[in-house]
């Protein structure tokens, strides 16, 4: 018996000629895990395998040590899920819908409590078809939490939400995790959000997990050679840096900021190197700092794959 919430071993799944999962392995401890990857990498397929909606061609997957191929009512009763494109009955109200969904589970949170949690109390008695896309997303999150789950799978939970909505959802996820020891597996394309909420990150590319670990470790590991160069003119700075030996990649990140990736031997004296480069030009060099975000790490990994 392992302590893993999710354990996936060497899972392969093909749809015709397309290999959606290619020997994927993933172990998830109780935490908030962000699953990131480019479009078509296999994120949604993995969620479907975990829910037992599709059977892998080979390999095994389990949640709380229960094989996902045998999806009993008890098994699904411990999992909450928000699909990428969920379907809600258009003529029901959120309150009615959440009440009915709650009764499907052995344990449940009341509809009013859920609505308050996701900030939908004011729209509790409106028809679902009259809700905005963002409100429907919140409703999706609420229904995922209706059965007091121990694991919640969220496929793009913040899509269609405005900035305030995203903040609320992320805060809610962290709060629920801290209070109820609920684990979350979240997929999202908005990496800055995952950075704020997740403890662990797994990167999936072409149906394989290419990296997994704590957020800080991974970012540090993959962005040691990535720097932000601040100058008076980022476009001119980019031109200067482009042809410099030892600088592998350059891109403009704002009017005064350029992101560069350098070779390891360039790192030690980077500041003096850059000062020399701008010396004699008409731009001012203000400084250089190590920049490591999840987005940088992701770009680097995707670039390499």
């Amino acid at each position, binding site marked *: 018996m392992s302590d893993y919430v999710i354990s996936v071993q060497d899972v392969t799944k093909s749809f015709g000629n397309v290999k959606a999962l290619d020997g994927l392995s993933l172990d998830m401890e109780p935490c908030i895990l962000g699953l990131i990857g480019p479009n078509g990498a296999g994120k949604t397929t993995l969620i*479907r395998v975990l829910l037992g909606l*599709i059977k892998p061609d080979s390999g095994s997957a389990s949640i709380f040590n229960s094989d996902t191929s045998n999806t009993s*009512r008890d098994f699904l009763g411990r999992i909450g899920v928000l*699909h990428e494109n969920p379907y*809600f009955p258009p*003529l029901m109200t959120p309150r*009615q819908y959440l009440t009915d*969904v*709650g009764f499907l589970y052995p344990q449940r949170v009341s509809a009013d409590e859920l609505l308050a949690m996701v900030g939908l109390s004011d729209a509790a008695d409106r028809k679902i078809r009259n809700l905005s896309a963002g409100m429907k997303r919140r409703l999706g999150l609420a229904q995922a939490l209706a059965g007091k789950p121990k694991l919640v799978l969220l496929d793009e939970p913040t899509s269609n939400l405005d900035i305030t909505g995203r903040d609320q959802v992320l805060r809610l996820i962290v709060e629920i995790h801290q209070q109820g020891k609920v684990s979350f597996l979240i997929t999202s394309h908005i990496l800055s959000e995952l950075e704020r909420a997740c403890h662990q990150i797994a990167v999936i590319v072409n149906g394989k997990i290419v990296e997994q670990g704590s957020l800080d470790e991974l970012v540090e590991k993959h962005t040691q050679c990535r720097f932000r160069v601040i100058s008076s003119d980022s476009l001119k700075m980019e031109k200067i840096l482009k042809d410099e030996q030892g600088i592998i990649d350059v891109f403009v990140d704002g009017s005064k900021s350029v992101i560069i990736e350098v070779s390891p031997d360039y790192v030690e004296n980077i500041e003096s190197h850059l000062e020399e480069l701008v010396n004699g030009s008409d731009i001012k060099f203000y400084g250089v700092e190590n920049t490591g975000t999840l987005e940088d790490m992701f770009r680097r990994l995707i670039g390499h794959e």
Partner: protein
Amino acid sequence: MSENQTRKFSTHRLEINMSYPFPTIVGLLSLFIFVASISLLNLPDFDLDIYLPIGWEPIVVGEELARVIRTLTTRAAVASILNSFYISLLLIPLLIAFNFALSFSNGQIRTLVSYPIEKRDLLLVKSGVLFILIVATVTLGGVFGLVFFYPFTIDVVVLGQFLVPLWITIFLMIASCMFIAVLSRSAPVTAVGGIGVWFGIYVLLPLQSIPSFIVNILYPIFSAMNYVNHEPGSPGYFLGTTSINDVLLGCGAALALGALLLYLSVLVFRRLEV
């Protein structure tokens, strides 16, 4: 209500709300009432021979009047229920196509099977609700028309002899269309396949080469109508004389066939990837 009953009730209510919202139900009922009413309005065109004896003997006139009313009521029942049935021949495949087959692609099935709901329950509730909906609308439509145009003349026994085989025929059609939907997971295939199969059978039935027991099994409603009202123009007239045993055996076999198709649908649905 116990916890288990509440859970079952919630499952059913959720599925009904997802698949058959209230306006759909009202729309269907109105359609069937309209069809039944139109069918009955055309009844005066039917040839109805009245033989009144010379001399106006009250008993004979009374008997003749009773015969005319009985014939008219039976024809009215046949006409209203038969036309409603023809509509359901189209509606059943279409409803299953748009409320079940389509739900594979619009995310409804994926959402539902992610909840702790048995796939068997899901399919049986969807079939059951559709059965109740169609049976209720066909029956109400037919009976409404009869009550409206021929009040106080409805023979409950005659009506029952039509209605029970009609319900069984509807059950068989729903089970077969559900099977097509589960196999194809495609709304167009279900709609075209379902309508094609049942209209195809309907067209082929009068062929002399098809044994009458097949007609009794696939369309129990026709053999029942032929049993009650054997006259030219009746949809089962080509069967010749039909006995009550033929009707009962046909109904039983149709029920068994429908149950088998539903069972197979559940088996396939359990293995489906959504």
